[in-house]
């Protein structure tokens, strides 16, 4: 074993690290500790940021799921109508008509898709009807006269 850079021991047969070196070793230990603390802090920050972003993501997913749960089957089946309906609700005089149009739609279309059809097939098969309903809603929106609940939108 060769070790030219090491400070010589107090005696050639003494393997104990000389007391004179202990101060330097203590300094080196402190440097190691400080370097470690910096890396620990950096990683704790990175980890906290990761968890925060994950929590936001989970929150968004949960919120989305909650909203989905609140949506009626009709909304899920006719999303464009649902969006239009949502817009009309706050238009004075038209909101009640929108309510009416939905009740009409409920009568016209079955509330549940036929068994055995995929979601895509359902969308394709129902698209023309949905288009018709949108036309009807647009007509209602453009109506100059306020529509009362008693009037038949048909």
């Amino acid at each position: 074993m060769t070790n030219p850079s090491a400070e010589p021991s107090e005696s050639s047969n003494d393997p104990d690290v000389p007391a004179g070196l202990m101060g330097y070793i203590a300094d080196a230990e402190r440097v190691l500790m400080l370097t470690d603390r910096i890396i620990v802090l950096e990683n704790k920050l990175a980890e906290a940021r990761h968890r925060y972003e994950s929590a936001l993501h989970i929150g968004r997913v949960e919120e989305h799921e909650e909203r989905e749960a609140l949506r009626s089957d009709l909304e899920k089946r006719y999303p464009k109508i649902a969006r239009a309906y949502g817009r009309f609700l706050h238009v004075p005089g038209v909101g009640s008509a929108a309510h009416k149009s939905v009740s009409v739609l409920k009568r016209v279309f079955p509330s549940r898709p036929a068994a055995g059809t995929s979601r895509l097939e359902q969308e394709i098969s129902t698209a023309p009807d949905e288009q018709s309903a949108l036309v009807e809603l647009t007509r209602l929106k453009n109506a100059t006269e306020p529509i009362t609940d008693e009037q038949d939108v048909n």
Partner: protein
Amino acid sequence: MSLSEQRSSELDRRPEVVSIVVPVFRTDHLHLCEMIDSVRHQSDDAWELILVDDNSGDDEIRAILSDYAKSDGRIIAIMRETNGGIGRATSVGLAAAKGEFVALLDHDDLLTPDAVEFIRRTASDHPLVDVMYSNEYRVDESGENAYRFLKPDYSPERLRAQMYFGHIVVYSARVLERIGGIREGFDGSQDYDLALRACEVAREVRHITRSLYKWRIHQNSVSHAKNNQYVFDAAIRALTEHLQRMKIDGTVTQSYAEGVYRIHRVLHGAPLVSIVIPTRGSSGDVRGRWRNFLTEAVRSIVQRSTYQNFELVVVWDTVTPKVVLDELRMIAGDRLRLIEYEGEFNFSAKINRGACAATGDYLLLLNDDVELIDPDWLEVMLAHFERSDVGMVGSLLYFEDGTVQHAGHLYEGGNAGHIAIGEASTWIGVAREIHVEREVSGVTAACALVRRELFFEVGGMSTTLPVNYNDVDLCLKIRQSGKRIIVTPYARLYHFESKSRKAGVHAHEWTELNDRWGREMIRDSFEPYPHRY
């Protein structure tokens, strides 16, 4: 934007076509048809299939290929008039391929229906990817009884020991062009040679963590055929040339009968290694005999190690019996440096103290309850540091009864564990991985070699983890610095840690580790079967 518009825009961002190249030679007709049908029934139809009959001399095979080519414009059948071997046939197929990515498929295997879809998605998500490989199913001759064969993420060291990519492997046209495609003269291991050369120049190698391929295992498979020594000879030649290109000084031998190789690296120079051993000088029963752990550990190292340039830095607690230190002086002679540790027990602080007192270029962190098995352990471990991106090397450790104590760390679900712990010494792993040199997420500090400079760069061992997880933390710091961690089965020691000893991990230690590294410990990159251990 309509759904159809969205789909077409997504499609625009994907590579256009995946070319699937299949060299065909005297295979079972049913298997051949099943292979072609598995391509035709892909969920994503952006593929072309190039079938190259290597002059099988079987009219029925040619008729099958021709019929399929006539029935589907995406299928190209090439009939060679002479037999040139699998390498030549594959080359012909590659030359005809027009896709941005090329996948290799064997004539009797099957693709899962989503294979092309996943290949294209991976290519789209990783624009720099040049090589992709997926997990696979192993199926019987009838194509049934599939079991999933999982693989680690890209592990260049392991690739030097075995062709763990298996199937399916996909190459970019760019990388194939750069390396000149497949080489002849490596039949049986032509895929291994191609993978090695491609990975040398690839911008990115990706592991697709999904089984996309069904490898039919039967008696006629090349890898299972008798008299297949030519396959392994070709692999050794491929590896030897790979070492030369990578400027790794070493030789290749076959370790096991089936496709496992050992790189015998040449160590240049003889850097000083500081073996840092924290101890309190305790004794215990080993193989029915009472012994002092420290003195016997040092005795085994001093007497058996073939590498000579090391010093022993022993960090001893104040309670260490004087008789132990005296005996240590006798055994270790002028290699020994003794430094006292007077504080409360803190493994990290003791290692750090030893590292500060050490003078070597490399630190070997070592527990005092070990016994050396392989005399050339230091040469084997040191030789890995000839690669500048290697930061740490660990060893294979056995319990007293010969069962495995450590074959690398695995980090999964926020927890850390030992790969193969408790397995018999004869256990070679699901894919013989236990007995090959490979990348791992970390290694135990019971025996780990690290560059001293790197150890200081990452702040040494964290003293706020005094008992548990300090080595996990150190390994994660080292990997964060961009360095690889290797475990080698050719540096073996006994570690007399009691198998029955409870880990004794406190909740606050787990919390501390996860507060630092939780995001990095969700899934282990290199151990695909973490729940086995």
